[in-house]
């Protein structure tokens, strides 16, 4: 049963050189208690997709389509109703923890604020809940940590604070946007472990947005690959890593360290004037004539949906 259903979502911007479709008619279903990884290179539109769910897009974005959560279309909710959902039922973990936290307030206050605002819990009780939460997040001295400011904590700790804020209210869905970007091995492991533990404990669904298939592999049940604003493959994790179907998915996998750092040939296409037909065809080693002419639809191969003529 899906808790989040994205239908024909398009996010468009007007630029000086023409309209830019960051997300182009994307349909995706996120099941209850699953971890869905949305993987793609920087600029493919995956962050925009994540932000669209909570209507956190830049002011000049034009959105069309539906995002259904428990039967309601999130896109049609007013600014009054949205804050109830944000943080409470669907929470968002941002990139760049040190920038996402308020530098002039202690981390304890920032976490307590989440309790106070959403659940109208009194400040004193909220402080207690904060300490408990920090303890569960693995901080051995929660009171001390709560009294510190973000600049006094390391990047990894701040990332854990952000995650703590996101899960404080037991949301149904956690959207994590590049939670491991720029972190070193050790921190990456920590954050991955954190997210893993949380989704098991809280029974939340996790929508993981990342460029790193390695991280996706450790956490997710299903993988969705995004290229140039479109989803080109959605597959159960096990099937995916055994052998991805879409040539881009394959190339992406090949470029990862475990597989030898083989670069994806060519360069990323322009989102303003994407290639005709299949958007990946100029870089594809297995392209056919039809690939340059018509855009492939989604074909079903066992449990995988793939947008490629090879699997017609």
């Amino acid at each position, binding site marked *: 049963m899906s808790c989040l259903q994205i239908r024909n979502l398009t996010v468009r911007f007007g630029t000086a050189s023409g309209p830019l479709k960051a997300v182009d008619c994307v349909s995706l279903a996120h099941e209850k208690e699953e971890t869905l990884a949305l993987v793609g290179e*920087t600029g493919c539109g995956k962050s925009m997709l994540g932000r669209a769910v909570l209507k956190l897009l830049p002011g000049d974005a034009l959105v069309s389509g539906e995002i259904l959560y428990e039967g309601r279309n999130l896109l049609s909710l007013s600014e009054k109703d949205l804050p109830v959902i944000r943080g409470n039922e669907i929470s968002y973990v941002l990139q760049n923890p040190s920038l996402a936290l308020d530098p002039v307030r202690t981390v304890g206050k920032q976490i307590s604020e989440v309790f106070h605002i959403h659940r109208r819990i009194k400040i004193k009780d909220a402080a207690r809940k904060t300490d408990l939460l920090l303890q569960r997040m693995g901080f051995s001295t929660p009171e001390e940590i709560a009294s510190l400011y973000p600049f006094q904590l390391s990047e990894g700790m701040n990332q854990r604070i952000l995650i703590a804020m996101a899960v404080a209210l037991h949301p149904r869905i956690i959207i994590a946007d590049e939670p491991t970007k720029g972190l070193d091995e050790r921190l990456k492991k920590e954050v991955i472990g954190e997210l893993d533990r949380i989704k098991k404990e809280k029974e939340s669904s996790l929508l993981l947005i990342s*460029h790193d298939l390695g991280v996706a592999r450790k956490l997710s049940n299903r993988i969705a690959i995004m290229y140039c604003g479109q989803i080109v493959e959605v597959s159960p994790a096990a099937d995916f890593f055994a052998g991805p179907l879409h040539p881009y998915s394959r190339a992406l996998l090949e470029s990862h360290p475990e597989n030898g*750092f083989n*670069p*994806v040939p060519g360069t990323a296409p322009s989102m303003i004037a994407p290639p005709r037909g299949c958007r990946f065809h100029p870089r594809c080693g297995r392209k056919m004539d039809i690939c340059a002419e018509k855009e492939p639809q989604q074909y079903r191969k066992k449990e995988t949906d793939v947008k490629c003529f090879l699997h017609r």
Partner: protein
Amino acid sequence: MLSPSLRADEVSRAYSSGLLSKRKKTVLDRVSLEVKKGETLGIMGESGTGKTTLGKIITGLEAPSTGNVFYGEKSLSRMKNTERKRFRSRVQMVFQNPEGSLNPRKKIELSLNQVLKLTGTPGRKQKEALLLALESVGLTEDVLYRYPHQLSGGQNQRVVLARVLFLQPHFIVLDEPTSALDMSVQAQILHLLKRLQRETGMGYVFISHDRSVVEFVSDRIGILANGRLHFS
């Protein structure tokens, strides 16, 4: 004559906190290393272990508290101005944040031209040299007319490399050059670096926290921990 090697000899760097306090924070403790042309020395360590400081000391951007950096037989601290200048062009550094490495107020063409002028290339040959440089790092001409924030991380890093290459360095110290890039773009840049090394015979000091990356590019690896550098 053998081309000079880049060597650090018992380099230490300590910071004292406060004017009168005796407390000293030792970031680097008697670190020694040597790189020859054509080879890649990898330096691994977690964030905040002083890797960047080491890189800056080797490039001469920062002075060590004790110890010396040698280029060939000459110690950095003993070099005269003209020798220093030549050292500058022979040993270059590439930083982690590609977009931050380029002046945000200048178009790429200007950023590149200013360095090109340093090499004394005559005016009429400048455009040609620019285009050649772009080609060697896999970029197209349209990049020239944009600002750094309009380019992707990978493109910016390539511009940074093109700029550094104008000086025809013998050594490049790369401080986490791919950490801010996507996995797939990282692969491209790593291959570019390898190709450039094959073509020019440069030596690299490759600093990173990412084990798989360091192992992929390096001939030898040193691990920086607690201020000390250990070679396996």
